[in-house]
């Protein structure tokens, strides 16, 4: 029973936890290798400038 409750709670929390993944286009969160700088601005100019990429939305 506790397992069922835990599973339901985890499902309920899923959208909140995974929201940054859901809202981010796939090609926008390819991470660079450790120690290297983050990817350059998107060729179409839609993505944020480098400073913004280095300091992503810290709100939540």
């Amino acid at each position, binding site marked *: *029973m*506790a*397992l*069922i*409750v*835990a*599973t*339901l*709670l*985890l499902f309920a*929390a899923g959208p*909140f*936890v*995974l*929201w*940054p*993944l859901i809202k*981010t286009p796939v090609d*926008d*969160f390819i*991470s*660079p290798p*450790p120690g290297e700088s*983050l990817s350059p601005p998107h060729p179409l100019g839609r993505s*944020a400038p480098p*400073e*913004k*990429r*280095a*300091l*992503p*939305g*810290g*709100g*939540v």
Partner: protein
Amino acid sequence: MPVAVLDDSLHPVILGYLGAGALLAALVMGGFSAVLSFWAGRQQNPVMVQVGRRAFYAATAMIVAAGGVLEWALLSHDFSLAYVTEHTDLSTSTALSAAGFYGGQEGSLLYWALVLGVLGSVSLVASASLGLRLAGYAAGLMAAILSFFLVVLVLVASPFDLLSITPPDGLGLNPILRDGGMLIHPPVILAGFASFAIPFCFASAALMAGRPDSAWIAHTRRFALIAWGLQTTGLVLGMWWAYHVLGWGGYWGWDPVENVALMPWLATTAYLHSSMVQETRGRLRAWNFGLVILAFLLVVFGTFIVRSGVVPSVHTFAISAIGPWFLAFLFICIVFSVVLLALRSNVLGGDAEPVAPVSREGAFVLQNLLLIAVVVVVLWGTVLPLVSGMLGQQRVVGAAYYERAAGPLFVVILALMAAGPLLPWRRAARMPSARALMWPGAAIVVVLAALLVAGVRSIPALIALPLVAAVAGTCFTQYARLGSGWARLPSMLRRRRRRYGAYLAHLGLAVLVAGIGASHFWQQEKDVTLAPGQQVTVAGYTLTYTGSEQRQLSDHTELVGLMRFGDSTLEPARATYSGLGGQSLTHVAISTTPVADVYVVLAGVTADGSASFSVFVNPLVSWIWAGGAIIIVGVLLGNIGERAPAVEAVRRRVPASVLT
């Protein structure tokens, strides 16, 4: 299936499963957050760092839900839960039933996890400004610590264990915990313990990320202050509770549990001062990391001591089987910290030039060393029974050891509190001016003369109390400087509120130490047996015993000895809890004035109506409580509304939309 159609007997079962399920989900989410945050921090993956942080928030929300379920069960007297049965009964008041949340082992662990989750979440909200690596590692460490507590809560000490048969009533709270102090002391001190984890996580994360600069200090300054403020409040409340409940006339017995609460407080006091040296002069980086890590390790060590029962203590009601778990956790934390400091020693480096001995930072360094020396003294006294027991014969040290070993160190710290704020930063080209020394110097002379005239010949008293007056004199000197330009006073207070809040906290500590000193040096006690109508006089205070009476209260009976004192009647009593196997407890009667407390303990009443009392006169005890309150007011005034410099600096460089 809707809950409303279930049989009443199923409701409690559902409560138990809801709570256990929430804890289990929190454990999964906490573990996920820990693993993901470490990985994302290492990869510097901004999206995954956010996901890891959100997982931590979700775990916190589940712990809050579990806490809500437990509180609901306690308030509704749901005795199908073993925890509720063991810590409340039907006669327990609503307030104490609610306090049962942290009154037992399992609940207090849940409370600890809850505080860590809530404060940790707050600390993580703005952590992105510290950089991806640091923020990711900090979230990972915090989630790892939270997960440890959740593992213990799920596997070893669940507050949601169900009884096979629901009893009609519970066992009730331990009589010593049936007091107003129960409502304030444990939650504050436990919250203080839990909050030490936050500076530890950010300091360790900064080391892991190779970022030994002051950004982590600026970010966690408020949390270090919260931890220190909570621990200060918890310690003073603990002293107040012990004084009012235990009935031995004192407030501090150097009990292991008191010691383990004092040690992280001392380490954090040192850190709050040395971190200023790093922020102002860029020095003591390695030392600051060490202090924050030491404070957290002392918290874990203290928890192990309290919960395992390896040393004798008045808090034996807290003993349980989770001691080995905390020992293992302590071992892991020590190994992690030592390895981390060793691996990062290259980035910490040494200071280019030594700290000038006669300077503000020099005073801070000396004060730090003295505080750590006190920690060593207290630690040795605490673990001696354990160490000596392993070597053959168990030895326990008493108050005399602590007073002889730590007393001189505290005296030098007082002298530094008086002189340090008058010294300039960097090398002091000249000594403080005669004008600056006037107030503290005059305070020393006046108090010393007054004590000598009053006939005091105790050398410790003649050293300590004038120094206390000098500390107060220094604080007033600083405020007098501020007041010299009355028109500028409000703006000065606003701009330098942190500094003047700190002086107020120093003043509060001086008041507190004056209370401790006076009650320690000049306490008077008399044990008497009086027939009705007879009097006793102690230190000039006369009390008249007028008789005794038996009272029946809701959960216990009281045998009360009535003592007339001036226009009032003091009612010391002995309470007997028949429902708890006849356990007996002393109820102390105290008459408080700013000058002294008259403290009466009833030892017993004989068949002929005569009664035995212990009567204490404790000078200036109320100053201890007042001093504690002034310290907290100083910390609050100095820091509420104070801007966090690191975050501000980043905000100036980065578009606002990025940080919100």
